[in-house]
C-alpha cells in the first residue's frame, strides 16, 4: 500500500484490493469484516483496527454512503493507510487504539459506487428496485429509523431523497444497524459526506435540541478548529436542522437515539467550482484536514467515557 496512489480516484475493485493488501501488511492491527451483501450481491466490508481486547469500546467511521461523493471514499482509503502508519508513531492515535477499536467502512454504498463508475457518475442512491416504479434506488441517508417519513425526505421513488418503503429497507443500511446493535459498545459514530464544509450533529428530523447539544457543539467547534488549522478551510457546525435543512431518517439521528452520544456527520471540502467533481489533486489535502477533525473527536471520545 506504500505505492498505492492516494491522489487519484479508484474503482470499487481497486479499493477492495487495497483492503486486502492493507490487511495482509498489518495482520496484527487490521482485519476485514463482511457485514452484509448489497442489493446487487456485492460484499459490504468494514475494516477493523484493533490491538486486542474483547468487545472494546469503538469508534465507527463511514464514507461514501452517497456514491457520487467520490472524495469521501478516496478519503476513507487515505484514513485507513494513515491509521496503520500512525499507530506506534503518533502517541494520540496509539493511545486511542490501545484502548478502543476503530471500524472504517470505506464504500458504504458499493452498488451505487460501482454504478457511478460504469453508467452514471452522478448517481447518489442505492440500486434497489421499487415495485410499481420505473425509478431505481433509495437515499440511504433517509432510510434510517429516526423520524422516518417526516418532512425532509421524499415518498417519490424518482426523487434523489426517496426514503424507501420502510426504515432499513436498504440492506446497506440494515447491515450497519445489525452491526451496531450486535456490537453494543460503539461510542462515536462519524458518517462522512461531501460537499458543503459542515460538521453536523443531531437532530435533523426535529428542531428539538439534542439533550447533549452543548457538549456536541463544543466538540464540533474544537474539531473544525483543528481541521481549519492545516489549510484554512472554513467549516460551519451545528445541528443538521438548524445548519443545513430538515432531513428525516438520517444516519446520525438514528445512532444518537441508540445512545451513541458522539454522533456526527461531515460534509467535506467544497471549492465552489466543482461540486461532486472535486479534482483528484484535492483528495489528499481534503483527507489530511479531515483527519485532524476526526482525531479531535476520537481523542475526546477516549477521554470522556460514558
Amino acid at each position, binding site marked *: 500500500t506504500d505505492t498505492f496512489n492516494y491522489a487519484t*480516484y479508484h474503482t470499487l475493485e481497486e479499493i477492495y484490493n487495497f483492503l486486502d493488501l492493507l490487511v495482509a501488511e498489518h495482520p496484527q492491527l487490521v482485519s476485514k469484516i463482511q457485514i452484509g451483501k448489497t442489493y446487487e450481491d456485492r460484499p459490504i466490508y468494514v475494516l477493523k483496527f484493533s490491538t486486542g481486547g474483547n468487545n472494546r469500546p469503538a469508534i465507527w467511521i463511514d464514507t461514501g454512503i452517497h456514491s457520487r461523493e467520490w472524495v469521501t471514499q478516496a478519503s476513507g482509503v487515505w484514513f485507513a493507510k494513515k491509521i496503520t502508519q500512525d499507530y506506534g508513531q503518533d502517541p494520540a492515535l496509539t493511545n486511542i487504539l490501545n484502548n478502543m477499536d476503530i471500524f472504517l467502512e470505506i464504500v458504504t454504498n458499493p452498488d451505487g459506487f460501482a454504478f457511478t463508475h460504469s453508467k452514471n*457518475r452522478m448517481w447518489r442512491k442505492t440500486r434497489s428496485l421499487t415495485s410499481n416504479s420505473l425509478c431505481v434506488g433509495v437515499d440511504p441517508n433517509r432510510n434510517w429509523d429516526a423520524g422516518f417519513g417526516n418532512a425532509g425526505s421524499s415518498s417519490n421513488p424518482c426523487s434523489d431523497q426517496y426514503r424507501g418503503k420502510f426504515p432499513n429497507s436498504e440492506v446497506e443500511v440494515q447491515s450497519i444497524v445489525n452491526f451496531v446493535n450486535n456490537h453494543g459498545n460503539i461510542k462515536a459514530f462519524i458518517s462522512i459526506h461531501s460537499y458543503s464544509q459542515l460538521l453536523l450533529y443531531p437532530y435533523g428530523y426535529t428542531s428539538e435540541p439534542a439533550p447533549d447539544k452543548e457538549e456536541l457543539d463544543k466538540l464540533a467547534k474544537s474539531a473544525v478548529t483543528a481541521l481549519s488549522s492545516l489549510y484554512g478551510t472554513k467549516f460551519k457546525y451545528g445541528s443538521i436542522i438548524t445548519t443545513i*435543512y430538515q432531513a428525516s431518517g438520517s444516519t446520525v439521528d438514528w445512532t444518537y437515539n441508540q445512545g451513541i452520544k458522539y454522533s456526527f456527520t461531515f460534509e467535506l471540502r467544497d471549492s*465552489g*467550482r466543482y461540486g*461532486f*467533481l472535486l479534482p483528484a489533486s484535492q483528495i489528499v489535502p481534503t483527507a489530511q484536514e479531515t483527519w485532524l477533525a476526526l482525531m479531535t473527536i476520537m481523542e475526546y471520545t477516549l477521554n470522556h467515557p460514558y
Partner: protein
Amino acid sequence: NEDFVGHQVLRIFAADEAQVQKVKELEDLQHLQLDFWKGPTWPGTPIDIRVPFHSLQAVKIFLEAQDIRYEIMIEDLQSLLDEEQEQMFAFRAQVQS
C-alpha cells in the same frame, strides 16, 4: 454511459426567503429533470443545481424573471467528467507499464 453533454451546474444565490421559496418551486417541476446538488436552505447560502441542456433556457429565464442571482459553476459537466476519466486512465496506464 449517461451522457452529460451540455449540462451545466448553476450556483444560485437567493437573497431572501421569498427567493428561496421560488427556487423550491423549481424542485417540483419534474419535467425539467433538475438535480439539486445543494438544495435551497437559507437566504445567502448557495444553491447548486445540475441542469440538463434541454432545461437550461427555462431555468435561466425563470431565475432572471424573478431577479434571482446565479452564476455558472460548471460550464459543461461532460468535459469535467472526461477530464476525470482521462486522469484515471492515465494513472492505470502508468501502473500497467
